[in-house]
């Protein structure tokens, strides 16, 4: 994995970058892809990106992003492209839905436990029931199943906003169509996405997905200093 801004990967003497190698074109000096797609494995990663997004679309996207944010953008674009190729119907949305369900499940379990704790901490029990009896009376499986549909993804932050513990833990999301906080509030700096990239690409929590290691890591795309 070559470092960011390696001049040898850009046009002008060091050979084409991975993107230009894939596109079979001359890699000019100042090629926008060169810092992020090295010669060795960059072509494979770029193939996925090109198939899903298209080179010109990605180029336009990167041009509108500040240069210091482009490595993160390339990592996320590569991730989405590979997820889409792996699951042509849902892409990485299936992963989002799975995580959302985990969040809801954990919130439900937490609410249940907090209610149970409140019962235990009462100075005088309201009813002569044993703790094990109350657990048997109310089971997690008795709670309604929450099955968020794909079409409800735009409102999936609402349970977070209404949950007490969530309000304590997270800042209130901005009034956004998808309730997504700004990128700066999500990921503090470039280092975090770099650390996340192996987790994403090596299938940290991807449900029922084949190993992502065969296609290499997006971190290899990003040239570390």
């Amino acid at each position, binding site marked *: 994995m070559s470092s960011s801004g390696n001049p040898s990967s850009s046009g002008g003497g060091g050979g084409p970058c991975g993107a230009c190698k894939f596109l079979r074109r001359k890699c000019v000096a100042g090629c926008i892809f060169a810092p992020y797609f090295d010669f060795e494995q960059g072509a494979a990663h770029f193939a996925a990106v090109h198939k899903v997004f298209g080179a010109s679309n990605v180029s336009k996207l990167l041009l509108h992003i500040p240069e210091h944010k482009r490595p993160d953008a390339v990592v996320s674009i590569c991730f989405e492209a590979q997820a889409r190729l792996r699951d042509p119907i849902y892409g990485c949305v299936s992963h989002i839905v799975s995580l959302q369900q985990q969040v809801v499940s954990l919130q439900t379990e937490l609410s249940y436990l907090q209610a149970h704790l409140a019962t235990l901490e009462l100075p005088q029990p309201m009813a002569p029931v044993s703790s094990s009896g109350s657990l048997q009376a109310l089971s997690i499986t008795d709670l309604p199943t929450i099955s968020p549909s794909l079409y409800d993804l735009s409102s999936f932050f609402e349970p977070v906003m209404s949950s007490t*513990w969530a309000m304590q833990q997270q800042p209130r999301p901005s009034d956004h169509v998808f309730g997504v906080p700004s990128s700066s509030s999500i990921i503090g700096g470039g280092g975090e996405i770099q650390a996340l990239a192996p987790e994403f690409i090596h299938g940290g929590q991807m449900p029922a997905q084949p190993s992502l290691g065969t296609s290499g890591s997006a971190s290899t795309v990003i040239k570390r200093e």
Partner: protein
Amino acid sequence: MNPKRCAACKYLRRRCPKDCIFAPYFPPNDPAKFACIHRIYGAGNVSKMLQQLPEQTRAEAVESLCFEAKCRVDDPVYGCVGIIHLLQTQIQNAQNELAKTQAEVAVAQTNLSQTQNSDF
């Protein structure tokens, strides 16, 4: 020819054929949907992707593509990966809170049984 062009063909300023691959999923009353998806993926790529899918799965594919495109438009750097990161953070926080509450429940149960034993 479809007398009423779908949103995609309207956006692309072309005739909407009877077998237009976009027509079932981009009704003319929602032009923004195709505009967003075209901006990120491009009409050609979306068309190719849809053609490779069984017809019964295309609607879901379009919705997920729209979602990802919208996320990317709203957050050009992280797209929906930002949402994944946020959810993973929430899961981690929830797990920590859950572990803490489970410990509190254990302590409370111990205190309660001790209190009950001392009453006897």
